[in-house]
């Protein structure tokens, strides 16, 4: 249920502002959280229960290093990440984020010990009500992730990896994980809905699955040629495997790689599941950060209007809010700035539409803003959100323009700017910019040579003739390690011509 406006029954005015010392205490955090929660409820924000955790800067760096999760399996790359973070932090090159929030049920938010009270209030409003309601409401998160079981699954993954290390040695485990990480971005189902993670199921089905998967693989490879060699050749060229190209490389490897041990298959699966969990976050950066920023701004301002916040508090959090939404001209777009501006702009279109707005957004101009942004939050991802809601007003405000970089051309071409002729073009270009499939190369499993050397062929389908980077050869070595036999890849341009080929010999067993 979404509200059309702020629920007047839930508005309670304060007789005096909450205390505003710069040092926080547990009681104060509790008091502030209470008010923030009531204010959020008066706007009808629907969230998971919150769990606030106070941590130190070092623990924050720990969390950074393990991709923001409270538990994760051990891997050298997280150690590297930690070292880099620590180094930058100690040299003062980088501030730590004020918070980390985890899409889990209850929703875990880390508050850093060093924050002042005003910052803690900002973080609570931002993470516990902004991000939290986004996790619960947005369709991608609802479809792809299961907040209730992610922590359990990570605990399971951590223990499983530790067991594997004990049984098979660190190096063997590290090799498999390295290879899986190389393919992590290509280990997600983009269109098919995955089964939800559940710890109990995972455990009970693990052994069963291991045995079954191995059986399947064996069956696949048992199809020995019975006919004469020439006929077999003809048959193999006729019969493709896989019959359709597969986009989920890790899934394909997990199910079909001939030589993987059961524990290696399970590692592939773990990396794949975690990649899938993070997939929605990669597609909703602008929407998610924008939503959280919009709501901390809204909630804290409302609290001020209701008399809960002192002037000093306001100035402190506003200062940091201003830093967060700062946008450097000519630089990459700041997702906080863009997202915040877009939600604010939608609210403006609802409340004070101009003629231009009525023309561009007949559906939402003049409608209640609360239910409108709620609808926007729930049913879009960055790409479609921008494609739907970026207004000419905002394009003018950001002075957006699009630059076309063609390899064949010696100069950049300004293809559109923020004027009447360019609005549509800029909007589409920006929308495409946030489309994951244009940001990441499209690579699919093309064919497996079932009758011959069992080699795997991948195909890269170029987008606008953009080639792969130099790392491709290295990644293919990882693919070969998992696959166990030779791997080829071909890169096809828009017209279907193969422009580049890679080949990696079978790894030594």
């Amino acid at each position, binding site marked *: 249920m979404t509200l059309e406006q702020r629920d007047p029954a839930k508005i309670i005015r304060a007789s005096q502002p909450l205390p505003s010392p710069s040092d926080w205490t*547990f009681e104060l955090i509790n008091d502030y959280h209470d008010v923030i929660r009531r204010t959020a409820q008066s706007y009808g924000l629907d969230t998971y229960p919150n769990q606030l955790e106070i941590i130190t800067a070092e*623990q924050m760096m720990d969390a950074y290093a393990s991709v923001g999760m409270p538990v994760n399996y051990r891997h050298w790359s997280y150690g590297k990440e930690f070292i880099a973070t620590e180094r930058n932090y100690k040299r003062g090159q980088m501030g730590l984020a004020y918070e980390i929030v985890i899409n889990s049920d209850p929703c875990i938010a880390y508050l850093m010990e060093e924050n002042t009270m005003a910052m803690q209030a900002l973080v609570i409003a931002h993470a516990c009500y902004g991000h939290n309601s986004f996790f619960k409401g947005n369709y991608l998160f609802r479809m792809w992730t299961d907040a209730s079981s992610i922590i359990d699954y990570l605990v399971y993954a951590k223990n499983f990896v530790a067991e594997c290390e004990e049984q098979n040695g660190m190096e063997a485990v590290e090799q498999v994980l390295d290879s899986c990480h190389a393919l992590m971005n290509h280990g997600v189902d983009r269109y098919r809905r995955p089964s939800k993670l559940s710890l109990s199921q995972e455990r009970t089905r693990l052994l069963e699955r291991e045995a079954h998967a191995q059986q399947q693989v064996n069956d696949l490879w048992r199809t020995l040629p019975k006919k004469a060699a020439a006929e077999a050749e003809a048959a193999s060229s006729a019969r493709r495997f896989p019959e359709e190209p597969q986009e989920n490389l890790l899934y394909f490897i997990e199910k079909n790689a001939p030589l993987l041990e059961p524990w290696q298959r399970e590692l592939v699966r773990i990396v794949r599941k975690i990649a899938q969990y993070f997939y929605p976050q990669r597609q909703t950066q602008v929407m998610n950060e924008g939503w959280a920023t919009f709501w901390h701004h809204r909630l804290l301002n409302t609290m001020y209007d209701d008399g809960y916040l002192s002037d000093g508090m306001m100035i402190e959090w506003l200062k940091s809010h201003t830093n967060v939404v700062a946008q450097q001209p000519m630089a990459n777009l700041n997702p906080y700035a863009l997202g915040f501006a877009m939600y604010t702009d939608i609210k403006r279109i609802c409340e004070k539409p101009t003629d231009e707005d009525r023309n561009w957004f007949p559906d939402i101009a003049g409608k209640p803003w609360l239910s409108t942004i709620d609808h926007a939050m729930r049913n879009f991802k960055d790409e479609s959100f921008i494609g739907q809601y970026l207004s000419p007003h905002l394009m003018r405000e950001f*002075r957006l323009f699009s630059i076309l970089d063609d390899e064949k051309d010696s100069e950049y071409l300004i293809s559109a700017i923020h004027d009447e002729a*360019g609005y549509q073009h800029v909007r589409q270009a920006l929308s495409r910019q946030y489309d994951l499939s244009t940001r990441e190369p499209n690579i699919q499993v093309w064919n497996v040579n079932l009758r011959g050397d069992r080699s795997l062929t991948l195909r890269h389908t170029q987008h*606008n003739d953009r080639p792969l*980077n130099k790392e491709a050869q290295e*990644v293919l070595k990882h693919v070969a390690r998992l696959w166990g036999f030779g791997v080829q890849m071909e890169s096809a341009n828009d017209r279907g011509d193969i422009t580049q080929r890679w080949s990696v010999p079978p790894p030594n067993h």
Partner: protein
Amino acid sequence: MLQQIIDRRLSGKNKSIGNRERFLRRHKEQIRDAVRRAVDGRGIRDMERGEDVHIPKKDLSEPVFGHGDGGVREVVRPGNTEHVKGDRVAKPQGGGGGGGGGKASDSGEGDDDFVFHLSKEEFMQVFFDDLALPNLERTQLAETPEWKSHRAGFTSDGTPTNLHVVRSMRGALGRRIALGTSKRHELHELEERLALLQREDQADFEVKRMHAETLERIAVLRAKIGAIPFLDPIDLRFRNRVRVPVPASRAVMFCLMDVSGSMDESRKDLAKRFFILLYLFLTRHYEKIDVVFIRHHTQAQEVDEQNFFHATETGGTVVSSALVLMEEIIRARYPRSEWNIYGAQASDGDNWHHDSGRCREMLADKILPLCRYFAYVQVAEQEQNLWEEYSKLEGEVKHFAMRKAVEVAQIYPVFRELFKKEGVPA
């Protein structure tokens, strides 16, 4: 809605340590090289600190499929103030990235090495990696520390055997004085008054009454003073003794160096590095280490570190003088039963030729039986008679070793060779 605040600050510190270990393990070779270079390049006193390790970025890369340069791409940027549709802007030359035409650099970090700091402990761990104390005969007491009891003032309780009589009596006296002073004072006054009263007319009723009163009061006070105990339990003082662990394994390291004219600065520097290594090595194995510096030309003398390394002497060389002094010092100050004795001798091999045979005898008969280990490093290439004499010992005595080192970079390998783990090929 359920809401909890959990204080995690005290739990789970250093959660990433396992990841760091894996990282270090993976880059063991680079780290070893960095440590080796650091040992070569550092001065004496800053040996025990961490070190920055550089690892080339390419060795750390985690490759993923990504778009390369080329093809057609379109980007949207904010902040246009000068361009209109159809403008053309020159591309930056040479892949410079940032700057003109609104194309900001998206390369992120440069191609610098990945640098991280190896902590002091980690540095030393790598440094001493696969070294072990030669003929490790550490006094077994190290495992069960020896305790020694020390006097540590007085306490108010203890066993009767530890009772300190004088202290206790002194306390009692003070207490008696403190408690009785006001009463004695009053008693004196009353006695004076009594004396006065006795001179008055004894028939007077009033005088009689006062006389009796005073006598009564005096009796009460005398009783009270008498009731102050001569010795009270709170007066008792006992000798306090505490047990302190005795550093069970102690080592003394003798640095013997030739400072005659032929030892120039660079040779001394080589010797110095060798001594540093030995010292650091011993600090890993012994709680307490004494270092004795003996320098010699034709005569030996014991000096402090500063003079040992930096003072220059001229003249001939009689190596045996240092050995004689070393033996004297051992006999006088470092009994073998209490100390693990290590000797390290550095010389350019130059010796008065009649003396070398005597050196060998001194070593074999007097010094080596007292030592855990004795290492000789010759910091010159040329083999003279001292080298030849010492060579005779090498095969015979297990805890004697000798090597040559003529460059700074050779010191560490030589040291490793000298102190290599037994059974592990060099």
